[in-house]
C-alpha cells in the first residue's frame, strides 16, 4: 500500500472513493480518507498543486483507463473514479492560478428544450469533470435563450449539447444560429451528442465535434482543446 499522500490520492482515484464513507473496490476501505480528504491534507501540508493533479489525479485516472481497456473495470467503476477526480478539482480550482497548471477549461452542457433525456448527458458531465474540466450543467429541457445567455456570461471554452429525440436534435442548429446572431459563435467550440446524432449531422449544422459516447466526448473535447492551446 502506498504511504505518501500523492500516492494515496492516486490509489483512491483508482478505487473510486470520493470521501471516507465510500466503499471503493477492495474490502475494508470504509473509514480511511477518500480523495477529497486526501486533497485537503495535501493542500494543508503544502504539496504542489501540479503534483496533486498530474501524479495523483491524472496518474490515477490513466491507470483506471488502462484497467477499463483491459476489461477489468466497468463503466460504473470509471464513473466513480471520474467523480472522485471531479470532486478534487472543485477543491483545487481556487489554487489553479499561479500553480503552473493551466485550467483545462470550462464547458457548459445542456439537453435541449422539450427533451427530458439526461442520463447520457449526466454521464458525459461526470467523465468531463473527471478529465479535469469545469462543467456547468444547465440540466435538461433547456431553452435556447438560456443556453445563449450562459455562453455570454460564463464564457466557456466549450458548449456540449445533448439530444435524444430527432425533434430536439434539430434545435442544435437553432442554438448555433442564435449564437452566430449574437456574435458569440467564435468564442466557443460546440460539441454535440445523443443517440440520434451522427458525425454527418454534426458537420451539417456546423458543430465543431461529435461524440458517440462518454469516452469519445472526452476525446473530442481534448482534441479541440489542444487546438485552442496551440
Amino acid at each position: 500500500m502506498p504511504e505518501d499522500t500523492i500516492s494515496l490520492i492516486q490509489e483512491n482515484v483508482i478505487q473510486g472513493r470520493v470521501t471516507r464513507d465510500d466503499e471503493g473496490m477492495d474490502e475494508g476501505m470504509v473509514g480511511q480518507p477518500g480523495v477529497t480528504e486526501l486533497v485537503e491534507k495535501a493542500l494543508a501540508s503544502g504539496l504542489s498543486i501540479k503534483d496533486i493533479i498530474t501524479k495523483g489525479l491524472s496518474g490515477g485516472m490513466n491507470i483506471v483507463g488502462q484497467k477499463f481497456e483491459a476489461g477489468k473495470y466497468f463503466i460504473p467503476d470509471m464513473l466513480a473514479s471520474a467523480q472522485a477526480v471531479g470532486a478534487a478539482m472543485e477543491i483545487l480550482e481556487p489554487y489553479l492560478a499561479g500553480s503552473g497548471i493551466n485550467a483545462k477549461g470550462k464547458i457548459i452542457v445542456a439537453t435541449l428544450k422539450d427533451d427530458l433525456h439526461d442520463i447520457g448527458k449526466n454521464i458525459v458531465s461526470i467523465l468531463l469533470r473527471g478529465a479535469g474540466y469545469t462543467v456547468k450543467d444547465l440540466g435538461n429541457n433547456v431553452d435556447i435563450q438560456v443556453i445563449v445567455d450562459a455562453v455570454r456570461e460564463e464564457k466557456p471554452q466549450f458548449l456540449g449539447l445533448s439530444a435524444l429525440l430527432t425533434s430536439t436534435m434539430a434545435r442544435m442548429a437553432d442554438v448555433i444560429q442564435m449564437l452566430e446572431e449574437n456574435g458569440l459563435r467564435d468564442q466557443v467550440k460546440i460539441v454535440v451528442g445523443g443517440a440520434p446524432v451522427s458525425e454527418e449531422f454534426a458537420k451539417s449544422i456546423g458543430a465543431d465535434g461529435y461524440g458517440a459516447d462518454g469516452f469519445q466526448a472526452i476525446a473530442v473535447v481534448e482534441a479541440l482543446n489542444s487546438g485552442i492551446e496551440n
Partner: protein
Amino acid sequence: MPRKGILVDRPYERLTREQVELIHQASMQILTDPGLISFNREAVDILHSHGAAVESIPGDHQSWQVKIPEQVVLSAMNSAPKTVKLGARNPDNTLIMHGDEPRVYLITGSETNIWLDVDFPTYVNKTDPTREIRVPEFKPRRGTVDDLCQSAHVCEHLEMVDGYIRTVNIQDRDITEDNKDVNKFFASLNNNTKHFMSGLTSLKQLDNVVRMAELIAGGKKALEDNPIISFITCLVKSPLQFVDDTTETFIEVCRRGLPIVVSSSPQAGTTAPIKEAGIMAQINAEVLAGITLGQLVNPGTPVLYGSVPVRARMDTLGDSYGSVETSQYNIDCVQIARFYGIPNYSTSGVCDPKIPGQQSSIERLFSDIVVTMSGPQFLHCAFGLLDCNSVFCLLQAVLDDAHFKMIEFFLRQPRVDQPELETMLKQIREVAATPQKLYISYIRPLLRSGEISGVYPFEGDGEADDVFELAYERMKELLARPVEHIDRETTARIFEEIPGILPRLNIYESGS
C-alpha cells in the same frame, strides 16, 4: 460437499393434486388390467412369488401376462430410497437427490452415433469478391473412442454439467460387442471426475465395469459409499412390456446395489396414447412396474424414476423431442415422481434439427427452461445433442452450458425482506436528493459479486453473428485445459485386471 445444482423454489406444475391421484389410480388399474407382458422369465418368477398373477402367453416367443396388484406395488415402493446419492471420482462432484426436493442436476448424454466436426471455411461474395465471410460448416462422421475422451474432457470443464452420461457411441474398428463397455467406462471415467451413468452393451461386462469402479473408488466398500457409477436400463418397452435382455441386466444391477434408472420412453401417438392423461397413466404404470421389480430383487436399491416421454412427429412418426407436448409430458412426470417421493430422471434439450442453428437453439432452450422449472432431480438435458439423439456436437454443448447458466441465474430466489427494503429506501432517498439522480454508484459493490448477470458470452463485436466462432474458441480453450486423469498406479491395476481396454487409452504407456 455435494454439487449445488439448481434449487427451484416453487416448481412449475401442470397438474393439480387430484389429477395426479387420478393418474396414480389409472396406473394401478393398468397394472392389473391389462397388466404387463414379460419376455423375461426371472422377472415373472420374482413378481409371481410376491403375489402377482401370472399366465403364460402361447406363441413363438416365451412370454407371460403379469398382473401386479396395487398392494405389491405400494409395499415395494416403500422400500425405494427417497434420497439417492450419486458419487463421483472427485467427491466435490457428488450429487445428492431427495425425492421431495426440486434441486435440479444437469447431466449430459445420451449416446449418439454421429459426431459433428465443425469448420469455418471462408466464402467470397460473387458480385463483390472483396467481401468475404466465414460460415460454420458441420461435417458428420461416426463417433470414436477419441471423441468420447474429448467430450468427457470438455464436459469436465463445463460449469453447469453436474454429471456425465457419454454423448457418443464408440464405433472404432477395434471396438467389439465384448470390449465396448470397459472402453466406454474407462474413457469417460479417465477424462471426467463427475458422476458417470451408463447403459450396458453386454451383461457379461457388468462385473468388469463394477470392478473398474471399485479400483477407482478404492474398494468394494468405498464404491458402496461413493457410487461413482450408476446404470440406466430401458427394461420397459412401451406399451407395457418387460424386454428380456434389459430386464436381465436390470435385475443383475439391482443385485449389486448400485444406483439405477428405471426408464421408460413411450412415444405419444404410436406406443402410447397421444392424449396427456393416457400417456401419463401408461408411463407411470411402466416405471412403477420397473421400480417394483427392482425393489423385490433387492429392497433398498437406489432407483430413479426415469421418464422420457416424447411425442411422435406427424410427418414421419419418428420422435419429436422439439414438440411442445414433449415438454408437457416431461413436466407431468416430474410432478408424478415427486408425488411418490422418488428422485426423477427427466429429459430436456433434445432437438429435432441435424445441425446447430436457430431451430436447435429455440427448441432446446424452450424445453430446458420449462422442464428445469418443474424441478426434476436428474435432468438429462442433452448437452450438444441434435437430430433427436442421433448427433452430438461439442460446440453445441458449449453453447448449452452458457444457456443453462442463464437459466440458473433466472431461477435464483429474490431477496425481499425488511432489512433489504430499508437499505433500498435509504438508497432511493439519497439519489432523489442528488442533481443527477443516478443509481450508478450502487452498482459497483455488486459488479463482481456474481449478483448481476453477464452479457451473452458469445456476443461478437460487429454486425455479424459470431456466436458459433466464439463458442468454438471456448471449446478449444476447454480442451487445452488439463483434466485430472486416474492416477498411474490405479491405471496400471485397471489394465492388469480388466481385459479389453484399448492400450492407446493408457495415457501413461501410449506416449500420448
